[in-house]
């Protein structure tokens, strides 16, 4: 049996995990990264479109600042997010982009002079800002008032991940890849590391750490078709849940992206629409302006996705071999633009569809894309119930995104949360609480437990086939816990998932190989995935309203009165899964609930909303400048690590 000690164990080598590790290392502690795959192969690499940060460098982002980014984010979340976190985030995003710029990300830059762009399907000419030449430029993304999404052609995630991956090597951060965290080691309410399986040799080890950070990404592949990498199976959330102590937040908040190709489910970036591409129906008609006169294709993702399905339900979908779809038309952008800025899109079309997007329309349909829910943490990234357990990136419900994430806010979140959480983790480790005696006896106990589970599985001769069970789960999630939801379907989903969970106790394996063995891997992951899937279904069933990406046909209104609260999912060690709720306090909100400006306006108001709106309006009149106003409405700076408190410089807001 192997025991390893480190200061901070970071589970996940995507953007969030890497940036956290770098931050921890720079604070003089020893981090260690675990990952299922080499870090640079993490799902983050697939992000194409870009990263939001209010730099305000390009003509169409003139005047942008944290306040506007904040408001966009809160509206995007359908007021489901934690506004304090959104504030910290929008303040940090420019710093994150600039740090990455210095470390090597080749962000696309502003060109001087006049250049052409496509807006609403039409060519327009744009004059660059004075003095902006060579600064980081931005493109348009859904749900934003300004062009704010920084990008490197359409390989943003790749460029960011490689830069951070290389940085981690530069700082000699150890990475143990092809390792899977199977369980968290914890004593009561204190987390002490994880039990880890080597996916190559099958060997189990205990990694003991003063603090553990989960940065394992989302749970998209609970669905049969998802834009996510196939390793995004909700494993990090599951091991947190299985402690019985940690809580998961808002699992039902699952985003569907409007444009994944049919049938493979591979994403074509929102940048396609941001750069001027449009959606068309079976008649070649551009239908989005009819539904969303103002933002058209660039309303938030939940809205565009629903409008698309709505339109298909009117019989306007294109009937194909793999079901119905619509068309994404980027031919208007011209070949030169596509080959330079949307090359990954071109390659995807070429290899997976055999078409040329410069002349052909792309068949698309809304597809599972992002997990807003995850391990519930406070603004410091720590689980409020399991001390020493932190989470960040898509794995967490830090709650930046509420019920809908804006495009470009996720890779930004990964890096920003990595920057912040690493500081809080380091603070924690150097505090008396972080200074604990790690228990090897405890580690042994957990290790034996996990070993016993695996041995049982390797000898299992039950009649259930793990592949079949998994397919059923994926099918249930697709059919009953999808874009449009209703009580009856969700109830069926919950019942069926519970049955699957029981059946998963009676697996039979055909292979007895203890080392690299995909069948064994699936077998032990299956119950974990089912528990998360059940959490999604239970949360969705209980939430009798529609908010952001969660849409109930039987409760189409957003009900602030009863549902302005966060779902908390917990599975005590002996017993049944539980749902609890954590209210969002309207009286503390900098931006009180209102209409998003796109989508359907159908809101049951919270009793405190009016009063808070009035307060805010009053403050707006009195405040001398935006900083003072902000400070008065919802102070947040004191919560930031000291090194990150300074304001951000902009062309129009120079620092002294």
């Amino acid at each position, binding site marked *: 049996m192997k025991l390893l000690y480190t200061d901070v164990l970071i589970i996940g080598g995507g953007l969030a995990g890497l940036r956290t590790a770098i931050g921890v290392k720079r604070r003089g502690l020893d981090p260690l990264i675990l990952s299922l795959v080499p870090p640079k192969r993490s799902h983050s690499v697939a992000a194409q479109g870009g990263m939001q940060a209010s730099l305000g460098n390009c003509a169409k982002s003139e005047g942008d600042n944290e306040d506007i980014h904040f408001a966009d984010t809160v509206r995007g979340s359908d007021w489901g997010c934690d506004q304090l976190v959104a504030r910290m985030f929008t303040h940090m995003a420019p710093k994150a982009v600039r740090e990455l710029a210095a470390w090597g990300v080749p962000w696309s*830059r502003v060109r001087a002079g006049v250049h052409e762009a496509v807006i609403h399907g039409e060519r327009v000419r744009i004059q660059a800002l004075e003095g902006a030449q060579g600064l980081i430029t931005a493109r348009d993304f859904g749900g934003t008032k300004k062009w704010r999404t920084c990008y490197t052609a359409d390989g943003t995630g790749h460029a960011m991940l490689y830069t951070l991956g290389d940085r981690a090597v530069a700082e000699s951060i150890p990475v143990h890849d092809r390792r899977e965290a199977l369980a968290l080691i914890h004593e009561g309410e204190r987390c002490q590391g994880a039990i880890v399986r080597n996916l190559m040799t099958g060997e189990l080890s205990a990694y003991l750490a003063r603090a553990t950070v989960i940065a394992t990404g989302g749970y998209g592949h609970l669905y049969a078709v998802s834009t996510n990498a196939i390793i995004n199976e909700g494993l990090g959330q599951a091991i947190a849940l299985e402690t019985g102590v940690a809580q998961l937040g808002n699992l039902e908040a699952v985003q569907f992206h409007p444009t994944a190709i049919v049938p493979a489910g591979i994403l074509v970036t929102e940048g396609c629409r941001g750069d001027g591409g449009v959606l068309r129906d079976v008649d070649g008609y551009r239908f989005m302006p009819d539904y969303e006169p103002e933002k058209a294709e660039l309303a938030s993702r939940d809205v565009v996705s629903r409008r698309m399905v709505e339109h298909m339900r009117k019989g306007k979908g294109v009937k194909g071999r793999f079901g119905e779809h619509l068309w994404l038309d980027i031919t208007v952008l011209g070949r030169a633009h596509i080959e330079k800025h949307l090359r990954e899109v071109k390659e995807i079309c070429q290899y997976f569809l055999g078409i040329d997007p410069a002349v052909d329309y792309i068949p698309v349909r809304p597809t599972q894309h992002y997990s807003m829910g995850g391990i519930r943490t406070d603004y410091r990234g720590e689980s409020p119930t399991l001390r020493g357990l932190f989470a960040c990136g898509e794995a967490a419900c830090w709650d930046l995104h509420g019920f809908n994430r804006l495009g470009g806010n996720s890779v930004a979140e990964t890096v920003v949360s990595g920057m912040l959480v690493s500081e809080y983790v380091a603070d924690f480790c150097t505090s008396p609480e972080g200074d604990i005696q790690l228990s090897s006896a405890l580690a042994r106990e957990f290790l034996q437990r996990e070993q016993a589970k695996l041995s049982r599985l390797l000898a299992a001769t039950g009649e259930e086939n793990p592949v079949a069970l998994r397919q059923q789960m994926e099918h249930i999630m697709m059919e009953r816990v999808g874009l449009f939801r209703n009580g009856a379907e969700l109830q069926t989903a919950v019942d069926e998932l519970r049955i699957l969970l029981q059946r998963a106790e009676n697996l039979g394996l055909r292979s007895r190989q203890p080392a690299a063995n995909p069948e064994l891997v699936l077998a032990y992951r299956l119950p974990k995935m089912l528990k998360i899937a059940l959490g999604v279904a239970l949360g969705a069933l209980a939430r009798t309203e529609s908010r952001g990406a969660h849409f109930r046909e039987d409760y189409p209104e957003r009900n602030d009165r009863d549902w302005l609260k966060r779902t908390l999912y917990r599975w005590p060690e002996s017993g049944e899964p539980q749902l609890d709720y954590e209210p969002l306090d309207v009286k503390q909100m900098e931006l009180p609930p209102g209409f998003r400006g796109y989508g359907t306006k159908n809101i049951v108001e919270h009793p405190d909303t009016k009063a808070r709106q009035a307060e805010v309006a009053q403050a707006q009149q009195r405040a001398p400048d935006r900083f003072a106003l902000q400070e008065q409405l919802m102070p947040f700076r004191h919560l930031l690590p000291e090194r990150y408190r300074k304001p951000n410089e902009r062309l129009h807001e120079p620092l002294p």
Partner: protein
Amino acid sequence: MNRTLRFQIFRHHPLDPQSQPRLETYRLEESPGMTLFIALNLIRAEQAPDLNFDFVCRAGVCGSCAMLINGRPGLACRTLTASLPETITLLPLPNFELIADLSVNTGKWMRALSERLETWVHLNEEPDIDRLEAPMDADLAEQIYELDRCIECGCCLAACGTAQMRKDFVGAVGIHKIARFRADPRDCRDDAAYYEVIGDEDGVFGCMSLLGCQDFCPKNLSLQTQIAFIRRKLARQGWKKT
């Protein structure tokens, strides 16, 4: 009529003392739009539950799934079976440590490469991130991105005759990475420093210009041009040095 494909797949589990390297045959009905990703998963689901292979993004961007497809390296996830004959032989990439079956440890190799070539921007000083970022010419940024597109899939090594003979050869991927950092003004290293890491027979001077790399790089990177460029620069550097 759909074809019935005949897959000959390399099977071996180095950690299992009983295992012998062998080719096993599986038959599969082809379906429209079938990729090797789909095919291998079907084979695993229905015929060989313990068959090891690596896919992550299944969209041709993460570099996990490179293998020898009928002898030639390529990304399995974006290879349509329709582009292949009825008999499809799949072998793991050579050059890399075999984990099992089609799965090889490219990650370990690439990390070692990164440490050896120091493939990161060597900073003069930490940036002040509260201030405006340092400007960069838009064309230069694009050029660096172009050089940054390598996905570390290992196809270039598998396609390289030199790399088959010399286990320590950095391959096109290594030389190309140096070209990427050399083009980047933020990296403060000079040619003498680059010479230190690839100015030898296991580096750029080991390349014999067989151009397998150029022809099989799934990202179509301009490896030929970049290798020649780095060779010229470092040859000059080596010539000057006394």
